[in-house]
Structure formats: C-alpha cells, structure tokens
C-alpha cells in the first residue's frame, strides 16, 4: 500500500511537471536561427 501511494505521488508529480512545462512555460521552436 505504501509503495502504491508513493508511486502514485511520483506519477502525479511527473505528470504535473510535464503539463506545466509543456503548456505554461513553452520554449517554442523558431523557424530558423542564426
């Protein structure tokens, strides 16, 4: 049970981090750069 709760928290944390970096702090790819 303890392992399930810890794993659940890690998955939730990683998912939240993924959503926040992809949707809220975007590093948009420019067409070109030089």
């Amino acid at each position, binding site marked *: 049970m303890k392992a399930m709760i810890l794993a659940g928290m890690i998955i939730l944390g990683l998912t939240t981090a993924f*959503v926040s*970096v992809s949707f809220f702090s975007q*590093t948009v*790819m420019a067409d070109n750069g030089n």
Partner: protein
Amino acid sequence: MAVGALVFCVTILLRTQVLASQDLYLHISIGRWILANRAVPDHGIFSASMPDAPWVAHEWLSSVGSALLYDHYGWGGILAAVGLLLALAIGALTLNIVPTLGPLGALFAAVLAWGLCINHLVARPHVASLPLLVIWLAAHVRARQSNAVPPFYLAALMTLWANLHGSFMFGLLFTALFAAEAVFESATAKDAAAAGWRWSAFLGAGIVAAATTPYGLTGLLFPLRMMALAPALDTVHEWQPSTIANNAPLFLWSALLLFLALWQGVRLPLFRLIMVMLLLYMAFAHRRHAELLGLATPLLVQFAIAGLLSRTAPGFTSPWAALDRPAVKRSVVGLALLAAGIFAFAGCRDVVRGPDSYTPAAAVAAVEARGVHGPVLNAQNFGGYLVFRGYRPFIDGRIDLYGNEFIARYMALDQLTALLAQYRVAWTIFEPANPRTAVMDNLPAWSRLYADDTAVVHINNDIEQR
C-alpha cells in the same frame, strides 16, 4: 469530441505562437504563385541569389491551402485550420485509445501527446500531417491486431500526405516496420511468406501513392535528399538536438514512461520496442520530432499496456458508467461544439498578426519611404516577410534551395563584406542582436536608416548618392 474541442480552443488562445513563423509568409506567397501560374515551381522563385537553381515545392498543397485560407479569411482562417488539424490529431488518438485503455487511459495519452506537440505548434505544413500520421498508424496497429494488412484505400491517404508534407516518409518507414513485424511474428514459414507478400503489396501501393505528386520520383526522394543537408539544418532551431533547456517536456515524458514501465514491468513485442526506440532516437536527435513520439507511442503500446492493466488493475479500463449514458454523451458533445464554435467565432475574427520577430513591418516601411532600391542582404528570419511584401530576398527559410555551401558562406561573418560587394547589395536588414548588425555599423560606406526592436536597416551610401 470533447478532447478535440478543448485542443481547438486552446490553440486559438495560442494565436501569437501559432502565427509566429517566417515560413508561413513564404508558403502563402508560394501558394499564390502556384494558383496564379496554374503550375508548381521547379526553380528558386522569389530568390535574388538563386533564382535559377532547381527547387521543388514539395509541400505545394499546404502552400496552396495557406494562400487560399489567408486570402479568404485572413490570419484567423490559418489559426482556425491549425486548431482544427491538431484537434483532429489528438481527437483521433483519443478515439483510438478509448476501446483499449478506457476513458482515463485515453485522456492520459491525449495529454501526453498534446504536451509534446505544443512546442512545435506553428502554422506550417507539418501540422497538416499530424492527423494523417495518427490515422495511418492506428490503421496499421488495428490491422496487425487482426493479423491482416491495412485496407488498400488507406494508400490514398499517402497521396494526400506526400503532397502536404515531407513526413510521409515516416509513414512508409512504419509500414515497412509493421511488415517486418508481421513476418517476424508469423508462426510458420508459410504464414511468414504470405504475410510478406500481403504487406509488400500494401507497401508498394503506399510508395506508388506517395509518388503521385507533381514532382513524381523527385518528390518521393525529397526527404532522403534533406538528410544530405544536415550541416545546413543544424542552423535551424527545430532541427537541433533536444536538451533539457530547449525540450524539457520530452525529458519529463521519458521519465514518466520509464517510471511506469520499470515499476510495473511493461513488456513490448520486439518490433514495437524497435519502433518506440526509433521514435525516441528521432525525438532526441531533432527536437521537432517529439510530436511524432507523442502521437505514435500510445498507439504502438496500447495493447501491451491493456494486457498489463487487466492483470494489475482490472477496473481501470472499464468505461465510467455515469459517463456512458446517451444523455450525458449528447450533453458533453453539445457543450464541446458550443465552446469550439464560440472560440472559432470570437477568437478567429479580425486576427491581426504580430508584431513578432519575423515581421519587420516598420523597417520595410522605412525602406519604402526612403525609396531605397536594389538588392538586399537580409537575416534569414526576414526572408519570408520580404517575399510576402514583394521583395526578392538574398536568403529565406528554404534550406533545400540554398544548400550547405551557400548557407555556410552566408553564416560566416568574415564573408559579409565579400557578399556585399559580390551581390552589389544596396541595403541590409538584420535583427538588432545579430552580429552582422554590429559589423554593418562599423563599415565606412554604410549608415543606419532605421532601427527598432525587431530589425535594423543599413543602406549603402554610395548607391544612395547615385
């Protein structure tokens, strides 16, 4: 439907990002040229430095679509089309995952795929290929599940894909990998031979369909020619390798998938694992390919995950009873369509583009006001806008037109004065932070005509005096 509508609405909100592209200006101009000439170009149209060099508009259908949308509906039309295409891709992915992984699993897959697409969500032809990729791969996965080949009419999709965007080659590559999987997983040599024949026939139909473009074999081989342009592509942000700074979502996506797989022990059939590894390599080698990884992986691994869930969490994939009633479904779809309609109406009307770093509008206006004529040496990022405004740029986003040697010379700062002399340049336009701007400031025969946060224009004093 609801997921698709949400994707559409968020895309409309991201309008500044979606429209900030120099290639979009170029595509609109190329599309107008094709419509006006009733032909596709075979040389470097619009270019001042390479007007006669061979060049194929391999994404000609996307260019024509961009031109028609812009000329009839303005920037709002382009924005709505990008929203719709991404909504179709994520919506089709969700629909394909729901039967195997249930609503929660499908939603998880949709969010993960969407997150990997969003950093490359710019109004350019690759967006048109995203729904095609999902439909193509989903049909392959379904066909393999029932030990058949995809229906042959699916090959028609390949014709559309090949005329829209160069990523059609990935579609063919995956057909070949699925064919290898079918042969590899056959129980007997006879089954393997039969599977080999059937899949080869489908692959053959796909290749013929992909060659059905105005450029025929040249168009078919175009993606392979692009690989030879690797040195020039290294100068383009989207082709650079992924790092934690420029593509953090990819690293978190990988960490999440690794955690889930290693914790629960997901086992993939060998060829599926090869496909996922290939996609992972592509995403880390070129940051733009993260979107392919995001959209393809859920389709490829769904049955392996479903098998695992049926052992470890049997209730996970069963549909939520409360959501499964027709009245609830109708209400959700109605609300989703209503929201998308409101966003389309309010968010896509009278959209004004810019100011962005690809649109030196005030600088070009200053050049016009001063009556400067003659060849321009421009920042590559301004090439699209110059074409859009009727100028012939020195260079633009068409790496495939200019090639490694020309781009290397253009990029070399010590070649700047030689280029100015060789091409009898009358004016230059570069970004304020571009090192060439500082060099231009120190050249005796040149003076600043205009400067703002987007662009700095220098004019040749000798040419001005004439």
